[in-house]
């Protein structure tokens, strides 16, 4: 079983992100379970959502306390809550930021965990650029696909097409594609570094 925890703020499409992750997994024939941390979240409040992936039926209903991956939609959360709580030692981290981990003062973390499973992505900018809205969720899941290699870009695009249509879908696909390529490039650069 592979467990992903997504952190963000109300209004940033955190729950949608996990749903789309689950759909992408479903498209690839896997079982997936996405669910929010239930509550009456209001816009701006810290929000967390979960996604489990497995090759067999997922029965477990507890929240994800020891994730295999973290997607952090809003870097400002880093100063508010312990988003890394329970993250497995070899877990993935994808952070929405135009800066590197080092630039935002997480150099120590990178040193501990190693570069191979960590990446930042200017997802908000990509959202603005392609969809016209500062919603980072779609670029992040595409980026996560690239970072983790868990899904193909095509599966993410299928999930986008299921959720959106028309121009919004097109924009999101463009954003996803660019994000995917950016992270892929980052990973390749690092691998070669």
């Amino acid at each position, binding site marked *: 079983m592979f467990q992903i925890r997504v952190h963000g703020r109300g209004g940033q499409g955190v729950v949608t992100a*996990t*749903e789309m992750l*689950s*759909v992408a*997994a*479903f*498209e690839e024939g896997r*079982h*997936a*379970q*996405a*669910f*929010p*941390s*239930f*509550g*009456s979240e209001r816009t701006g*409040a*810290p929000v*967390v959502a979960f996604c489990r992936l497995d090759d067999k039926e*997922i*029965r*477990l*209903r*507890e*929240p994800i*306390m020891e994730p295999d991956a973290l997607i952090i939609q809003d870097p400002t959360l880093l100063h508010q*809550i312990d988003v890394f*709580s329970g993250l497995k030692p070899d877990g993935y981290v994808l952070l929405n930021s135009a800066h590197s981990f080092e630039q935002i003062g997480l150099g120590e973390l990178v040193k501990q965990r190693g570069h191979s499973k960590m990446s930042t992505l200017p997802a908000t900018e990509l959202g603005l650029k392609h969809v016209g809205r500062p919603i980072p969720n779609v670029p992040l899941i595409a980026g996560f696909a690239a970072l983790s290699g868990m899904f193909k870009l095509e599966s993410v695009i299928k999930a986008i097409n299921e959720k959106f249509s028309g121009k919004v879908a097109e924009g999101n696909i463009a954003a996803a594609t660019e994000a995917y390529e950016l992270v892929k490039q980052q990973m390749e650069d690092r691998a070669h570094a």
Partner: protein
Amino acid sequence: MLKQIEGSKAVAEAIALCRPEVICAYPISPQTHIVEALGEMVKSEELAPCEFINVESEFAAMSVAIGSSAAGARSYTATASQGLLFMVEAVYNAAGLGLPIVMTVANRAIGAPINIWNDHSDSLSQRDSGWMQLFAETNQEAVDLHIQAFKLAEELSMPIMVCMDGFILTHAFERVDIPTQEQVDGYLPPFDPRQSLDPKEPISIGAMVGPEAFMEVKYLAHAKQMQALELIPQLAAEFKQQFGRDSGGLVRTYRADDAETMIVAMGSVLGTVKDTVDELREQGHKIGVLGIISYRPFPLQEVRAALVNCKRFVVLEKSLAVGMGGIVATDVRMAVSGTGLKGFTAIAGLGGRNITKASLHKLFLEAEQEKLEPVTFLDLDWDVVNKQLEREKQNRHSGPIAENILYDKGMSTSAAKFG
């Protein structure tokens, strides 16, 4: 057709396949996504003919359903928690009038303190209302139970609640097999009401019945639910034939064959329980699971049969009879009365408290060793509780309990959410 879909949306699609004619609902979390989806289907005429009525309260929602059902229309509504309590008078009335209304209860705790998260207090408060209650373990089962529920309700002319855990199921995106319209039509015949308000054959429904006949009326309602005990497995079998899936029925066991310790539970927690049991089995513990699907009617015989060969059982329930203990446990103990079985009650998950595999692991092992108190409160913060009890001992006016607890735990309400 397999879909990766939110539980509420899946249920809405299943309801739509059942061709409801009148749907009414009042917004209350976590049931809203179901009726929102249905509302959209009615407005787009994807679901037609159907009347979708935005009522002004749950009391009205159930009342509208009473009216539409009495006038011969297949009627559906959904609610939860305070909403269910607000409609209680009409809930009893619908049952008393024998109206085959189907209602989804997205199970949620009852306040005060106000709490939107899942437990089973709401529908269990209606256990004596005369409604049947079926509990879904997964969203697939929630879909399937709704289809069976219409058939069951209409064959017996009795209303039924399909209970699914709020948020945990309603808001979870999972893989669900949504049947086709042909499949559902082949299973569920059009509504042929036992009686209906019709100028062609005027009747008076809802008479005042005095002591001379009231007992009989009530007995007949009871007899109906006893009939349901036979009908529910039958409908599940027919369902399997039509849809090729095991869904519904009265109870379901898991790894129970040689189990010495049995865990009894209802709803979605069964999944976590099963995962825990799998781990314990791997470690060599003889432990199994009994899931109760039909809470009302309560299958005394089936529960007894499932437990009679074990040595001990734990009823893990998301409900509390304040001043007494377990609610489901009482019924289970009734089922095994005279067997001398050791039974424990574990109250868990109230108000959405997470039920983790780790806690269950510990609980089940303790149960196996029979170290449990007769009534255990899973993951209760004794520190906080004891502090408050101490305070109250010293001063009768010690302030609101909930506030004090939050203070003790050093939590703000927003911080309390995480984890």
